[in-house]
């Protein structure tokens, strides 16, 4: 299952963070700092997977944004890469420009795609339909 999803810019600042397990305060800060520094230091030639404590970190860079997903257990790493791609495309379609996204809406879109650490819906149309529908009201 997915443990967390982090979006950071190339300076290491969090743009979006979502955790699917209980982690609070100090622990969360430390985790984020650790994970972000490890991923940002990787070069282009290295693979997208990093083992961290008991989790696997899977990350991808899109322009100036890093998408980092932490997974536990036997998750298929390549499928998470596909998921990240899916996530980026969905955000792209809605925001037209992933950099300046509205955090509230981003959370809502994410909630249409992942629930309790499991992937919920992968079709971009089906994910965005409820968002558009509730905006009209």
């Amino acid at each position, binding site marked *: 299952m997915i443990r967390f999803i982090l979006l950071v810019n190339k300076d290491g600042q969090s743009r979006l963070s979502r955790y699917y397990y209980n982690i*609070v305060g100090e622990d969360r800060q430390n985790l984020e700092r650790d994970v972000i520094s490890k991923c940002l230091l990787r070069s282009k030639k290295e693979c997208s*997977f990093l083992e961290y404590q008991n989790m696997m970190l899977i990350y991808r860079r899109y322009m100036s944004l890093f998408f980092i997903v932490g997974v536990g257990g036997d998750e298929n790493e390549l*499928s998470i*890469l596909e998921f990240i791609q899916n996530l980026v495309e969905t955000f792209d379609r809605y925001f037209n420009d992933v950099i300046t996204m509205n955090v*509230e809406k981003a*959370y809502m879109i994410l*909630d249409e795609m992942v629930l309790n650490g499991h992937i919920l819906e992968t079709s971009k*149309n089906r994910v965005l339909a409820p968002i558009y529908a*509730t905006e009209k009201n």
Partner: protein
Amino acid sequence: MPIPMRLKELIRLIRSCKTAAEERAAVNKECALIRTTFKEEDNEFRCRNVAKLLYIHMLGYPAHFGQLECLKLIASNRFMDKRIGYLGAMLLLDERQDVHILITNSLKNDMNNSTQFIVGLALCTLGSICSPEMSRDLANEVEKLLKSANAYIKKKAALCATRMVHKVPELSEIFIPVTRSLLNEKNHGVLLTAVALITEICIVKPDTMPHFRRWTPQLIRLLKNLIMAGYAPDHDVSGISDPFLQIRILNLLRILGKEDQECSEAMNDILAQVATNTESSHNAGNAVLYQTVQCIMDIKAESGLRVLAVNIMGRFLLNSDKNIRYVALKTLQKTINIDSTAVQRHRNTIIDCLKDHDISIRKRAMELSFALINGSNVKSMIKELLDFLNRADHEFKAFVTLGIFQAAVKYAPDKKWQLDTILQMLKGGGSYVNDEVVASSIHAISEARDLYAYITQQLYSTLFADISKQPLAQVAIWSIGEYGDLFVAGAIEEGSHKINEDEVLDLLQSVLNDSITSFITRAFTINALMKLSTRFPKSASRIKEIVARYANSVDLEVQQRSVEYLALFKNYDSLRPGLLERMPCINRGDKAEATVTADATSSDAIPIATVSTGGGQASDLLDLLGDSLPPTQPLQPQNNNTATSDILSGNNPSVGGNALLDLLTSSEDSLMQPISTNPAPPKIAPLNVYDKHGLRIDFNFEKASNDANNVVQMILNATNSTSFPFTDFVFQAAVPRSFQLQILAPSGAVIPANNSGSITQVLKVSNPNKQNIRMRIKISFNVNGNTIQDQGEINNFPAECN
């Protein structure tokens, strides 16, 4: 009161701050404004303020004062309010807080709402944060929603149910009947989540698997339709039809087929079909192939299918994409146990991966390489691995040295090669070589009877070149001490000049004088010098003088030895030759390298940790081994000295087997603390209190039937089912004030891998008021270069404990 700013403006404001202090000031100011607005019970801007608070929380600032506001938003009728309120609940609340129980009622109402989006919100929140109590309360509601006609609601309800069965496995019974119809759906979202739910139920309640195995044909049909289907625009990724669903179904099939022959046979065809038909030009296809291979490896597949799987992985290994190569190495590691010949074919590629730029790939290649070593390829593999050791990152060196050593011991074609390899390993490993490996190297050397002079000469030259690496120094010094006479008298190699006694003593003295040398190495050196005092009779007085210098040493062990050896010189000189004779070949226990028998008659260089409960008991023990040396004092604890702390550590009640204590007779039971002295204590069932990351901790209980303080003794047993040992294991516990807790020293700090050993520790809880015992535990350990810490609470002690 000015109108609170929008979230966008806040984000812009914070991003424009140039320093952390500036940001903190801006955030604090905004928080103060928000707090004031909350106090004024303003309905209009609550939504906006909570949204800002969530952003502030994401940045890492405290935001708990917004929790109640979220509740108010949830109770509102406006959709936007509810949405932010539920989002806030998911981000700010977790099941450890009491506040979240207050939303149970709102959730229940909203789940019955006529608007699907509101139902969706409630399900999303419930599925993210529900506690066991909430799960029990609302499971029936969720089950009802699973039967709804609306696919949007169904899929969310299914994932909500996964959390509920994870928290309360018994609730699976409620959901199993409805899963049947879910698999007949056409909607991919529903299928995806239904398979996730079934998978979760299988994991938390394995006894339901026979039931789900009956649906294997249906799952296979689903998979087949996906592969054969034409272009499905909604879920297509690079030409593969819904790879996410395919992967999930394959995962479920893997779990169902794992232990079951019949089920595995049923899937053979479809697995072969997926493996051969899936396009591997894009990542999506490779992801499906990867999952298929994992499935094949875990079930009871026929050999043809396995060969197909290994071939796919072989192809992956040659792929230019690093991610694919990494995944291949990882899978092959799992495969090696099942079918090592197939993996051997790819040995050369794997060895090349040792030189890869990427540390993740190097790590996997390293682990896989060790698994590939066998009798026929050991020489070439070790050559590559020694080369790797010299270039390796620090975090790998300990693992590599251990691996090389084990391989050298297991597969060495001849003794000389083995000793050469050990020497190379010590040189390459530097200071990262484990103490156990040092001890075992010494053992290996002592076994090579014809090669004493040779190996001592090699070690001497290496030590001469560099005295700073402690593991190498210790082995070299031991060898010099033991076989120095053979070395000096023996043949010269490679035209170097003949070493005489004085040069040997010079070297040892330089080790003692060097400030880098650790106390343990100094202890080794003093022992070696003493042995040489009999081997080099002409130099006895010089040695006596060197040893005397350490009679004032700061380190207790060094000082002790020095003083005792001086006494040996002065008063018991006649005993010296007999005591310092050449050691017989060290006998090992049948356990793995960890323990070395403390033959106390020889001045064994390995420090002995004795019982601190009384010097008298220690000397009883030493008398048993026929030694007349005065008892040595307890030694300062060293971190990695698990080998030695196992020896004579009668202070630690080792319930698990201890090779040394096996040697001793049962009369030594008095050294061990009595585990149970009462006749017929009440039998209490053991309790598993922790089971994560491969670490399993069980408590066994013992209780005296007549005890004023109502003390219950808990014996902790910690095991490790992963393939890496856990080191520096520390267990801490705390109890409420009405109890008293006494924690005794553990049997060790290392838990060997693959359930091959355990750590035991005794806890005593005094419960004079006969209340229900509760305990908070905190564990930490190192595995594979990472530190894992965790804590938890135990509330489910058996009633007989109280």
